[in-house]
């Protein structure tokens, strides 16, 4: 039976309170006040990097060589022409012999990717497909969209063995309902009047899809443990559930006041949150929104109990740090273009041929381990670094991206360019061996100590003439 075999999520550590935004620029467009905070990317994060980190969470403890597909859903792809799913697959150190595809343009593309992966499993053309959905949408500074949109990612592994939630069925609506849009020439989303979007959009398409699904599979609201769907207004979110006949405790928390609207990732993040609390036999409905809606019915199996050690939504929500400055926020997302002159402009020219040759090193964080003495080393070496070994070309691949390390030494550098000075970096010793230098991210200098435990996180590294370079950085382990 096809279904979900694992889940993971990623929420950026930084949160900005919506009052911080109002406090900085006032109620400039659409005189409304939205409650709570939203998750925002650090300056080195984007939809791609978040998807990789959600993927790492989802694949915790699993054999990555078994995957034969990776679908990525986003409306905020970092390239218009370059397979983002291919970059994610390389970062996750998956085989090249997989089917990889990007699902994009509508915020319901997350559920569409999930449905497509389910269909591929059901048809037998694939055994194990990872679906990542991630978004970091922007509105103009001071806009309604800026208040609503949050950043986040979810990952779901689909397969037909050890299924934790079976895919029971789906019901889809697709139409050209233009409530928000972004032209190819524009960077920021535009939106039509919020009352129309609320009443004619969310409050119609989601109920239509969910009731269509329940009718199609002869389900009553009381049969359902949790129903998951996004909405831009907290009160309207509650009304939709009520309208469909669900009690408030059957409706999965919207995360609007903790994370915000996360585009393609939104319904999948809500589903992950529902799975975290699910019991065997629970029926879960998840519906997306955006140019229509996909509604899906899932049933949780006893295998759900085997899923352990995920950060998921719950732990990611708990791991947060307030970003008290709106100026920092608009610097991180490059709405405000700060000066990078001088040192910041001295980019080392990116080279496609070097990136291809070194893709395992740079994107997969794969080094080598000496087969003679067992010493792990990064970057990969021909000749063993251990002084009394020195074996020549007796190396095997060794992945560091999912290993814990300790900070051996570090600094906070005010001389090099970074959008968030000082630039933090240090020497990391990996548990099990291996040492190299990495940036530290998502922390302040005064939080860092010699000996502190760190884990690796996938991030943007540089931008050079149309190329965003990605690699791994270290981040303090937070329990």
């Amino acid at each position, binding site marked *: 039976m096809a279904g979900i075999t694992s889940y993971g999520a990623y929420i950026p550590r930084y949160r900005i309170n919506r009052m911080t935004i109002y406090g900085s620029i006032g109620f400039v467009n659409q005189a409304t006040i939205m409650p709570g905070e939203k998750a925002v990317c650090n300056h080195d994060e984007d939809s791609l990097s978040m998807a990789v980190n959600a993927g790492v969470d989802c694949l915790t403890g699993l054999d990555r060589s078994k995957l034969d597909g990776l679908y990525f859903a986003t409306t905020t792809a970092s390239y218009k022409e370059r397979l983002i799913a291919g970059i994610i697959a390389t970062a996750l150190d998956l085989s090249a012999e997989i089917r990889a595809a990007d699902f994009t343009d509508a915020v319901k593309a997350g559920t569409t990717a999930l449905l497509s992966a389910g269909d591929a499993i059901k048809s037998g053309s694939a055994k194990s497909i990872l679906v990542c959905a991630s978004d970091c949408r922007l509105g103009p500074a001071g806009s309604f969209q800026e208040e609503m949109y949050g950043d986040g990612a979810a990952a779901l592994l689909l397969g037909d063995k050890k299924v934790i939630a079976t895919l029971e069925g789906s019901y889809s609506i697709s139409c050209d309902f233009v409530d928000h849009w972004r032209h190819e020439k524009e960077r920021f989303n535009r939106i039509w009047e919020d009352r129309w979007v609320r009443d004619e959009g969310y409050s119609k398409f989601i109920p239509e899809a969910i009731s269509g699904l329940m009718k199609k599979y002869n389900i009553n609201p009381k049969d359902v443990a949790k129903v998951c769907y996004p909405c831009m207004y907290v009160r309207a979110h509650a009304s939709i559930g009520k309208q469909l006949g669900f009690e408030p405790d059957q409706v999965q928390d919207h995360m609007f006041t903790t994370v915000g609207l996360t585009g393609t990732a939104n319904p999948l993040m809500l589903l992950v949150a529902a799975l975290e609390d699910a019991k065997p036999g629970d029926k879960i409905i998840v519906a997306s929104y955006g140019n229509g809606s996909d509604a899906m019915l899932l049933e949780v199996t006893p295998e759900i109990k085997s899923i352990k050690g995920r950060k998921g939504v719950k732990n990611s929500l708990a791991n947060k740090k307030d970003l008290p400055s709106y100026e920092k926020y608009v610097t991180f997302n490059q709405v405000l273009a700060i000066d990078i*002159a*001088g*040192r910041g402009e*001295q980019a*080392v*020219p*990116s*080279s496609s041929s*070097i*990136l291809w040759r*070194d893709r395992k*090193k*740079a994107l997969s*964080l794969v080094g080598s381990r000496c087969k003679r003495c067992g*010493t792990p*080393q*990064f*970057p990969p*070496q021909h000749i063993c*670094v*251990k*002084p009394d070994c020195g074996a020549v070309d007796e190396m095997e691949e060794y992945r560091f991206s999912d290993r814990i390390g300790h900070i*051996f*030494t*570090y*600094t*906070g*550098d*005010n*001389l*090099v*360019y*970074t959008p968030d000075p*000082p*630039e933090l*970096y*240090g*020497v990391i*010793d990996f548990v099990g*061996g*291996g*040492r*190299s*230098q*990495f*940036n530290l991210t998502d922390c302040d*200098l005064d939080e860092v100590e*010699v000996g502190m435990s760190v884990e690796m996180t996938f991030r943007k*590294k*540089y931008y050079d003439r149309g190329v965003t*370079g990605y*690699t*791994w950085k270290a981040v303090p382990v937070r329990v």
Partner: protein
Amino acid sequence: MAEGIKDKVAIIGMGCTRFGERWDMSSEDLMVEAYKECIEDAGVDKKDIDAAWWAALYSMQGFTGLQLSQTLKLQYLPVTHVENACASSTEALRGAAYALASNCCDMALAVGVEKLKDVGYGGLPDLKTPAEFLTMPNMSGPGVYAMMATRYFSRYGLPPDEGKRMLARVSWKTHQNGAKNPKAHLRRAVSLDDIINAPIIAWPLGLYDCCGVSDGSAAAILVRADDAKKFRKDPVYIKSLQIAAASGADMWYTDYDYTHAETGYQCGIRAYKEAGIKNPREEISMAEVHDCFSITETVTMEDLQFSPRGKVREDIESGFFDLDGGLPVQPDGGLKCFGHPIAASGIRMVYEMYKQLQGKSGDRQIKNPKLGLTHNMGGYPPWSVVGVAILGL
């Protein structure tokens, strides 16, 4: 069995430009300024020179031997461009010395130059290769040495304020010396409090823990030791000339402690052996070491065995390395006050030893020096090339 370079080669002339922000000077202009003083000091004719080496690190100064041969109008000589990071001009000196010792030429010129102040911003331009840039942090010079200070403080249990005070004493001493040197870039004594309270460049290093950034050039003319007295009564002899490059273990193997530079320690051992020195703390009269940052000089005192491991603080704070101390270090003002035009620094240090040995250092003159040591560390502690030269009468 290798014999080493000891007493086979002598320096008979040297020149050194004023170091600083020489906005009106190109690297060619700087080389000419150093060369003019050098050839006048040697009292020889240009046509007597029959081989030359020049060192510059950054590519904006050009490649090949032509930058030197065409600037000085050397007539079809074997001229070689060398680069070995901050040890570049020690490498040029080594090329010249080895050619003389092997009897392949009779008089050789070595020049080091670096024109840094055409970059448009402070500090040094990055040197990573595109492949390194894919994963390595964007690190600055202060940052990579700051990591050594972080580790040194941690290993020896120094609270940051005590650690910073120790480092401040290093820079304080050097500024005292630099204030007396007309060729130095930063000619001002600085108070300990100003040093400690200066803005942080890379934690825990502040502004005065960092050397200046400047332009400069230095040059030397060398002959075989047997010929040296024909040119002057007080030639300075090379007792040792060593280079050590890191093996990768310091960078990527987990044994390295980051509180010393193994390259510096190993290079020192080889240099002392070559020069026949048994007790460096007693036998070396003075030293110019690579004080790109205060922490660099600090650990170098231990690497070169001037102070026992972990005990340098006592020597720093007792004034042992002051101009009137037991082993004066940076008598000319060091990189701290000269700045560090990369490939000029090695020969600039030798210039100070040469003048001190000849008794020509004015109010910075050290009493009766016998042996002077110079030390450069290129790159950063686990990824370094170190050059050590020992000179004497």
